[in-house]
């Protein structure tokens, strides 16, 4: 059956694209994920992948036409198919592709196309009042939400939120891997794995990042932690200590605690300092969030973190456990990693990667001494801050860890 090939939304800030070149002509084959045209988007001229497979029966958007995301670019199907009804549907709104109204099936997401939502003929998506409020609040386009009943409900919105939007991963499908080329084992790419994938892709595609590393002498931090653990009734880990140091530094460097608005017109400096700590679970990478770190002591943080980790591993999270972070810490020290760069967790501005603490010969007062050294690497969003600011920030964290007393000052 002939289908509409729509302008995919690649990148969270993309709203539309102007066609600059078609790589295929009418009659050519396109494959899902293969680059079919180039268009000028919010970023630059980008290659746009097809969100359907089949023969191009009709190109609707000509070079120069501006097409909103999820609006039709072409009709794809099998040769000889009758596309009159689709054409009528598009022209029925009395406009060119640039102004095609929502009366056309707007579902662009390829994974959803197969099980496409039945669109009402008026183009209005039936929605419950609660779901409507949620969608508005979360910035979800209701025309993309799949629903099983007679209208979009809260459950549909939550399910949509859980499912990563396939268009996000489309632009990086540079090489099309098919299941026929020497595959030994096929694992479904779904659930958390897919969610992590889309988050990572979103981060790398949308965030111009840079990374800065500082080597930190952990002598005093180790002593401090020992002292704290002598006094406290709960074991305080390095993660909580570093979180505390980060919160102190974020207070000094508030732009590192900022986020770029989805429409790219404003930077929001966040009020609370909520620090996510990446945790490995049976299900994959999860990031439980320590809330309001600035207001808490390390012992309270340790207690919070212990229960967060338990809830996360047992899949018993309560709302807010895994969301609302303004900065993230990723610690691979226990795996002996010398240093690494972590991918920023969008929409945050930065992430701090903690490597292993290793006894290392260093020069102190012109003498070679052995000190426990840890490399910390900050990845930051260059749209929000510049390198110098980020360097001051990460160096300050280093200073705090080298003399933890300063955290209190």
């Amino acid at each position: 059956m002939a289908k509409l090939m729509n302008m995919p939304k690649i990148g969270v800030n993309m709203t539309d694209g102007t066609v600059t070149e078609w790589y295929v002509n009418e009659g050519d084959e396109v494959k899902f994920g293969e680059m079919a045209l180039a268009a000028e988007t919010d970023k630059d001229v980008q290659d746009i992948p097809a969100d359907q497979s089949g023969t191009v029966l009709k190109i609707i958007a000509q070079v120069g036409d501006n097409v909103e995301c999820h609006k039709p670019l072409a009709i794809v199907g099998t040769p000889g198919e009758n596309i009159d009804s689709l054409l009528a549907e598009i022209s029925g709104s009395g406009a060119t592709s640039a102004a095609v109204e929502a009366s056309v099936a707007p579902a662009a997401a390829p994974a959803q196309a197969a099980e496409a939502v039945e669109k009402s003929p008026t183009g209005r998506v039936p929605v419950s009042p609660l779901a409507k409020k949620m969608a508005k609040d979360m910035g979800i386009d209701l025309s993309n939400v799949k629903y099983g009943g007679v209208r979009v409900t809260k459950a549909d919105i939550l399910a949509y939120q859980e499912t990563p939007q396939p268009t996000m991963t489309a632009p990086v499908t540079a090489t099309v891997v098919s299941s026929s080329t020497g595959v030994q084992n096929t694992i479904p790419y779904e659930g958390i794995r897919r969610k992590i994938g889309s988050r990572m892709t979103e981060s790398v595609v949308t965030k111009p990042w840079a990374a800065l590393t500082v080597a930190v002498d952990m002598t005093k931090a180790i002593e401090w932690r020992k002292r704290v653990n002598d006094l406290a009734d709960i074991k305080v880990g390095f993660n909580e200590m570093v979180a505390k140091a980060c919160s102190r530094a974020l207070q000094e460097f508030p732009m590192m605690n900022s986020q770029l608005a989805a429409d790219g017109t404003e930077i929001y400096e966040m009020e609370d300092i909520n620090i996510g700590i990446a945790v490995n679970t049976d299900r994959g990478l999860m990031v439980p969030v320590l809330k309001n770190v600035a207001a808490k002591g390390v012992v309270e943080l340790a207690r919070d973190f212990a229960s967060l980790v338990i809830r996360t591993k047992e899949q018993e999270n309560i709302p807010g456990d895994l969301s609302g972070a303004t900065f993230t810490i990723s610690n691979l020290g226990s795996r002996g990693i010398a240093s690494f760069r972590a991918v920023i967790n969008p929409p945050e501005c930065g992430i701090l990667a903690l490597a292993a603490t290793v006894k290392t010969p260093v020069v102190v007062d012109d003498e070679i001494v052995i000190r426990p050294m840890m490399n910390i690497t900050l990845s930051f969003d260059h749209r929000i801050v510049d390198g110098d600011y980020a360097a001051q920030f990460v160096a300050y964290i280093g200073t705090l860890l080298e003399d933890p007393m300063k955290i209190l000052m």
Partner: protein
Amino acid sequence: MNKFDLIVIGGGPGGYVAAIYAAQKGLKTALVEKADLGGVCLNWGCIPTKALAKNAEILRMVKEADKYGIALNGSGIKADYAVAQKRSREVSGKLTMGIKSLMKKNKVTVFQGEANLINGTSLKIAPSGEILEAKNIILATGAHAFRIPGIDYSNPQIMTSKEALELTQVNPGDQIVVIGAGAIGMEFSSIWDSYGAEVTVIEMLPHLLPNEDSDVSKEIEKAFKKRGIKFKVETKVNAVVADKNKLNLTIDEKGKTETIICDRLLVSAGIRPNVEGIGLEKAGVKLTDRGYVQVNNQLQTTCPSVYAIGDVTGKLALAHVASAQALAAVHGILGEPVKQFNYVNMPRCTYTYPEAASVGLTEDQARKSGYDVKVGIFPLAANGKSVAMNETGGFVKIVADTKYNEILGVHLIGAHVTELITAATSYIDLEFTADDIAQVVHPHPSVSEAIMEAAHAVVGHAIHI
């Protein structure tokens, strides 16, 4: 000849609805019932108790007639409970006849007797010995009153709900103890108190109507206290001994042992599923840890051709839930999409005086589920129609989540509020937020305005308080 598309076992509000709906959908359908069509609901539960409650209501009104300037001249008020009981049986009888004619009209073949499964597609009926076969079977065998062990139920002074409905004499001064402050126990208490009996309710948990929102429990406790109905919470009955024509109950009230004497005892301490003697094991139908028939979200048992609905599934033992499951099970059998139930959002009604009705989460449940809870309460004392009707006890309470003013639960207590819960149930089912409810124009004067006012209270401020 005895081959069907579907056999339904049990003719209660789950079973008979399933049979009618399946027949309407074109399935050749049989129904096996061991007693009367209509099941417990129609014969020994919901319906006859409502008839008794009506008699009790009239009696209460007549007793208060002088307040309204209506004088009853003559020999005072004489209330005959036997007439009330007889009327309740007639109501059940009438409705049972109605079901019978619906069966006939929809061409459902009704077999009288007990069904025993041979396997997942056939069964034998006792005592006739007939064997029926079908592509699918729906179990709708219902439940029976739980009998607390150690009590002699052969004593006619000791009743479960069924015997309570056969009771023909309740006189002023009769001492009746009711074990269990759930809907059944509370409704009988309310009726018998109206007839002048001295009722004592005994509940193990800390409140009357322990499954309701704690504010509703407190309100019904207040109302019962005012009516003179005694109750003891956090109390267990340790022994029941017959002594001449009285019953001696040894109770443990919060650790304190005491003896109370009464004329009659109603045991209404929950229900148990009817799973014995049906041959479930022969069909490979498994039970849950709690002893109910295990079903998936399509209401299919562990035997794929056998479905189960109603009380026997242990989901929520209410007639309207069974009827809703009945439609869903038939959809499943026909291969149509099956509506997924959120049992939390099923309405629950208690027909005491005053009535209690609720849907969704209680405030405590909502808080425990991690919601950021916001509550709106509107007292019926501030509702015009309630004042005019002289029924000012009770309130409407809306439990909402702060973020979107999502309605999590609605709790009503007051005269006739069971009729109002439908509106609240619709609001929740349609996912109205408190803002939406506040914007719906409710008729004036009506008790239903209180729901709108409570929604206003969630959003900001109610107008009339």
